């Protein structure tokens, strides 16, 4: 059988979904204003959940190539988020969804943008929640949760999101 010798393996070495998520995360940094106290030092994205190492690799790759407002991008990855350290974005992977409520409570007013990927997560305190609509990655945006977290959101974001109140 004259199959391409590269076949599907080479294609699979590239993780489409991780790249897509990385682009989304970078974009979110454009649409929010963080508190003054968080405008110095590295821009930190903390990913909660360790099962998607392709994503961590992609984010680290992004961190080595882009900056956020002239600041270095730093990726942190762990299974939990115990200490309320200054984190600009907390991205809770699906596997860690049971922690959403707890983490969102801990980070009220701390200036952390909480991003999740679980249906109904905005009701648990998430400001941005990834959803799939017709095989396409989209996101829900809950402005109230963003405000509670201490962030100012651009009005443009509302037009790009599936709005949830």
């Amino acid at each position: 059988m004259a199959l391409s010798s590269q076949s599907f393996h080479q294609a699979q070495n590239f993780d489409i979904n991780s790249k897509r998520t990385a682009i989304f995360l970078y974009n979110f940094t454009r649409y929010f204003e963080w508190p003054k106290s968080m405008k110095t030092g590295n821009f930190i994205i903390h990913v909660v959940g360790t099962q998607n190492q392709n994503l961590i690799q992609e984010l680290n790759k992004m961190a080595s190539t882009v900056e956020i407002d002239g600041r270095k991008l730093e990726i942190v990855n762990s299974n939990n988020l115990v200490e309320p350290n200054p984190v600009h974005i907390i991205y809770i992977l699906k596997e860690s969804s049971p922690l959403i409520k707890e983490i969102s409570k801990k980070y009220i007013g701390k200036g952390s943008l909480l991003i999740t990927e679980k249906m109904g997560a905005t009701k648990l305190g998430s400001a941005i929640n990834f959803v799939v609509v017709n095989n396409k990655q989209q996101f829900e945006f809950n402005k109230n949760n963003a405000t509670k977290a201490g962030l100012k959101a651009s009005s443009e974001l509302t037009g790009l999101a599936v709005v949830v109140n």
Partner: protein
Amino acid sequence: MLNSSISYYSLKNCLCFLSLLIGSNQFAQNGLLDSAQKLCLEKKYDLAIPIIDKVILDPETKLNAGSWSIRAIAYFQSYKSIGKYDVSKISLIDTALSSTYISMKLDITNDRLESNKILVKSIAGVYYNLSSVLLKDSLNSVLSEKYYLRYKKMTTQLNPSFDFKEKDIEYYRSLGSIFLDLYMQKNFNQEFGEIAKTSLIKVLDINPKDISANINLGVFYYNQGATLMRLSDYTTDLVQLGLVQDNALKLFKQAEPFMLRVHVADPKEITAIEGLEGIYVALLDEVKANEFKIKKEALIKKQ
């Protein structure tokens, strides 16, 4: 992979026959023609060529079908003596072919019809094998296809009812596979990708169930979609990202039926299962992606 399998078997028969023909040529009274024939019989083809080239200009022998046949043999054998399919010497074969056709035209009594036909068949075999060599060694798809089509045309002239279905499948499947590899190796080069796609579609036009063509086309469309995402910069804005997603989505959906067709025909074909898993991951369809992941794992466990 394309098989360079058209042998010289028929040519050997042809040459035995033509040796007799050369030896008994009724026009041997011409000095130059006589010398050329003699050199051919002694297998000194390179020496025969300049002489036979004069013979075909001589008013006495230029309208002699035998002169042109001998010329065809000399050029053909000269090419064959190189010992490999050398594209740079293809003019020898082209001359052999044109000489054979002139001989056929002049051979009003059809005395040489059979021997000329055998010669045409042998020359067609050279073009076929060259088309294969050009693909595998030089990756020259344009010239390769040109020679393949020439082989087909010549074969059709000899046998108008010849069924090219299998040969076409073999050729275009091979062309598609080689250029799909290149497409991926050369950083998803679109030019190579288009050659691969066009060739594989030709295979499916002949046999819609061809497994390798279906899989390779599925891989091709998947990779096209993946490439859109791969080439997107991290700073791509959300509006643009939406468009990239839309276009990639179309391509992933285009890939799906090719892989599904193979999976339905052969549920144990692991490349199709892997392909479908990848496609559904890209389509963010967790349920289906998981279904094919389980199938893949079960199959690997059995092996």
